[in-house]
């Protein structure tokens, strides 16, 4: 985080697709621990989100309380599921439509999440407890 603001970093799908999941998680958590908020141009599967939570929990200490994250992936409709299945079977890759936003839980507050809209308040360094 800078002196008077929050760094919000956008990572493109192309950049992310070049990383294996474990590398991607390492990159994400490293930046989040440094108080950046990341906007990833891809949706994550429930299994990947589970791994994200597990990895974040394993790194929690007195200085790093963990993460907040939000998803604009939905993936809940039948069309989404059918699309994912086609991508999985034909192209051997996840469809990954959507966005994932990840940040340090001491930076992100007042999270509001719906399937198609998300918002949060980024707390400045001077406001952190």
């Amino acid at each position, binding site marked *: 985080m800078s002196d008077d603001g929050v760094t919000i970093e956008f990572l493109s799908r192309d950049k992310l697709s070049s990383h294996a999941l474990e590398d991607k998680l390492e990159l994400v958590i490293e930046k989040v621990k440094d108080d950046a908020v990341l906007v990833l141009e891809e949706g994550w*599967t*429930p*299994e990947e*989100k*589970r791994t994200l*939570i*597990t990895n*974040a*929990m*394993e790194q*929690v200490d*007195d200085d790093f*309380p*963990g*993460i*907040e*994250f*939000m*998803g604009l992936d939905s993936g*809940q409709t039948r069309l989404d599921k059918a699309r994912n299945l086609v991508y999985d079977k034909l192209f051997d890759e996840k469809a990954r439509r959507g966005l994932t936003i990840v940040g340090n*839980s*001491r930076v992100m507050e007042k*999270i*509001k*999440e*719906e*399937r198609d809209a998300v918002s949060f308040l980024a707390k400045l360094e001077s406001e952190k*407890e």
Partner: protein
Amino acid sequence: MSGVKTMIGRLKKLISDLFSSTEQDDISIGLYGPPNAGKSTLANQISKDLTGEEMSDVSEVPHETRAVEKKEQVTLEAEDGRTIDMNLLDMPGISTNVDFQDFTEHGLEEDESKDRAKEATKGIVEAIKYLDDVDACLVIFDSTEDPYTQVNVTIIGNLEAKDIPILILANKTDLEGADPSRVRDAFPQHPVLEVSAKEGENIDKLYEEIIERLS
């Protein structure tokens, strides 16, 4: 002589295998949800009803349950005689962060808060690992809170991916501000039962649903 012993050994193993393949294993039912949704209150309600004993500590302080609490061989019997033998698993509440400062705000000393935070993070990892091992799940939400969170989406999504039967419970219906319809709207693909674990409301209906879906 050794040939006879070997043959007897094989015979014993064969009988043992036959038994284990025909014996009905107990069904492991996991109680999942975010912290303070009322999992342990519900676990105690079920355990007390069916065994006469409580199984978990309950507290207003988040992450009171920091390790998986088990109550084995809990038998649920329906009026029509159908029974289910269950292993109840009260899971630590899953969250994406555990800040020791939250515990100090509840009056705990700093050292105690830090220890509690460490235990809570281990508990969350343990609960997540158990997602692979349960046969069915009661997913419990606080009806006064917004249910559409990534934690809840992640729990439900992982259970769906493994085809594990889910019954969602919209808990705390006794509280002012409870709105179970939000739970239904957030997860329309699953059945939702409104309950108050604290007041014991609709728990009989829960037992009927468990028998109906799992027996």
